[in-house]
């Protein structure tokens, strides 16, 4: 479902061109659990933004379900993000001063295909899937612990029932114990609901939770192997 062909992303900084991604090619099939691993600055986040239709490559082709994302308009890219992609960020990015439920429902207001009446049920399903206790649903997001916040963020990523979950350093801000809970959540989502999960990390131990590891360095793939 994901097919990258010679993706290059370059930035011009101070008149010189630096390529963050260099001719990156790979494929990820439906239902895979892939970790993209690499040191800081290797271009992992840049790649994730491209995979999530938030950004366009400078050159190369990125096909998502057969559609060349490069050719899509802004609106069409937004529609893809809304319907097919669920982002989980390192820094959670929850709306402060808003309840857990409001945060989880947020993506639905930008998805015209979901009737308003079904929102609550969908939110409950997503929150149950990440294992957040019912009594916390009406808490404000800034009253939660880091692990709880990240699970709310994952529930938010799930609400549109996306085929792909993109998680950028989802455990980077968590201690190893809460990190393990979050990684368990991804594992379950992959195993039980068949979501394609792409996990970005610089941590080998985190990457080992996945079924396949793509390693990049300086914008190039240096290894791609199952584990």
């Amino acid at each position: 479902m994901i097919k990258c062909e010679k993706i290059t992303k370059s930035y011009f900084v101070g008149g010189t061109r630096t390529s963050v991604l260099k001719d990156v090619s790979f494929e990820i099939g439906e239902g895979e659990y892939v970790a993209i691993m690499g040191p800081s600055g290797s271009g992992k986040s840049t790649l994730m933004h491209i995979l999530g239709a938030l950004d366009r490559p400078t050159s190369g082709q990125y096909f998502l379900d057969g559609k060349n994302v490069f050719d899509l308009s802004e609106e069409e890219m937004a529609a893809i993000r809304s319907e097919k992609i669920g982002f989980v960020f390192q820094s959670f990015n929850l709306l402060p001063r808003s309840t857990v439920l409001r945060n989880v429902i947020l993506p639905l207001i930008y998805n015209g295909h979901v009737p308003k009446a079904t929102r609550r049920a969908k939110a409950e399903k997503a929150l149950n899937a990440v294992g957040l206790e019912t009594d916390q649903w009406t808490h404000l997001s800034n009253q939660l612990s880091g692990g709880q916040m990240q699970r709310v963020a994952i529930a938010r990523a799930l609400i549109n029932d996306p085929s792909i979950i993109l998680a950028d350093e989802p455990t980077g801000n968590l201690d190893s114990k809460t990190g393990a809970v979050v990684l368990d959540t991804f594992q379950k989502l992959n195993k039980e609901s068949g979501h394609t999960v792409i996990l970005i990390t610089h941590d080998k131990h985190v990457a080992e939770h996945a079924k396949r590891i793509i390693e990049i360095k300086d914008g190039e793939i240096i290894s791609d192997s199952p584990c």
Partner: protein
Amino acid sequence: MIFSDLFEETIFSMSSNKSRSALTILGIVIGIASVIALISVGQGTSKGITDRIESLGTNLLVVMPGQQRQAGNIVRGGMGSSQTLTLEDAEAIKTGVTDITAVAPTVSARKQVAVKGKNTNTSIYGIDTSYFGIKNIEMELGAQITDQQIKSRAKVAVLGPTTRDDLFDVEANPVGQKIKISGQEFTVIGVTKAKGGTGMGSSDDLIYIPLATAQQYIIGNQSISNINIQVSSADLMSFVQAQVQELLLQRHRIADATQADFSIMNQADMLSAMSSVADTLTLLLAAIAGISLLVGGIGIMNMMLTTVTERTREIGLRKSLGATSNDISSQFLAESVSLTFIGGIIGIIVGWGASLLIGKLGSLTTVITLWSVLLSVGVSTLVGVVFGYYPSRRAAKLDPIDALRYQ
């Protein structure tokens, strides 16, 4: 994004920073309230002027003695100082000019009036029977002056209500009582209804007596002070004015119109001159108020730009969750329009209150018109759109990745 979501997001966003929203709304409230209040003052002034002139009678031409100035209709010399108009002139106008409904010659003078020790100085008007009709004067008490009383030079008087209050008790019935005008004893036969207004042109502070009586006993000659002519329709004012002019020039044997020994005041001309002054005043006041509205609008823009900057990360997040640029810009636009709309509504209420207060406390009349209210709502909403547009575009154009990285 559906409307109800947009609405909820807007309410949420405004209430998440209540004091800032309130201050921004205050800016608009002040702007709109001053527009409403100042326009109401302008309109009130304009209506006051129109009412005053119309209370003098409708479709009125007034012929006054005295020389005419080269450049306008201003009479040289005080009222009644020249004695160039006569009753025969009035008669000639009545018979010789078409499209008039009534002609009322009057004699006027200021005299000392006394009643049982009370003294006052007031205008004495010698009138004939058509005068009250032309001036729309109605009786509060007693009877009008009759033809018989004019012919017989009867010493009878009709009082204006203010004069009655001055000479007798307030609201008293003086009919049948005697008063002394210039030492002559007159019998009060009636009191006119109050018409409002004070000072020059007020019909409340004077005494009416029969025309012939006034000529004989009060001023002592046969001249008259002016001739009021009521024209049958407003369109014919200038036409009738020209006829009167020609007739009187002929009668007074004056060849050159600039040398005329009388002048004709056209009520319609006066009305339009005065209302154009009042309209300019309204416009000026509205412009001043408009400036404060503009300042309020800049306040909106300032607040929205701050909000956009503060919420940059949130904008990036919303985009990553599937929001389009249009979703983002409509959210910010909805917020600024809501702020100005709320400000507009409160501003109308405050402005309304202020204008009522000005009307109550000051000597100014205020009039709130529907158009000034609609204009304010429209303008305030427009301010929201105009000053919210740039911040909302700025929010919409943010690159989601840059926005997410923003610290």
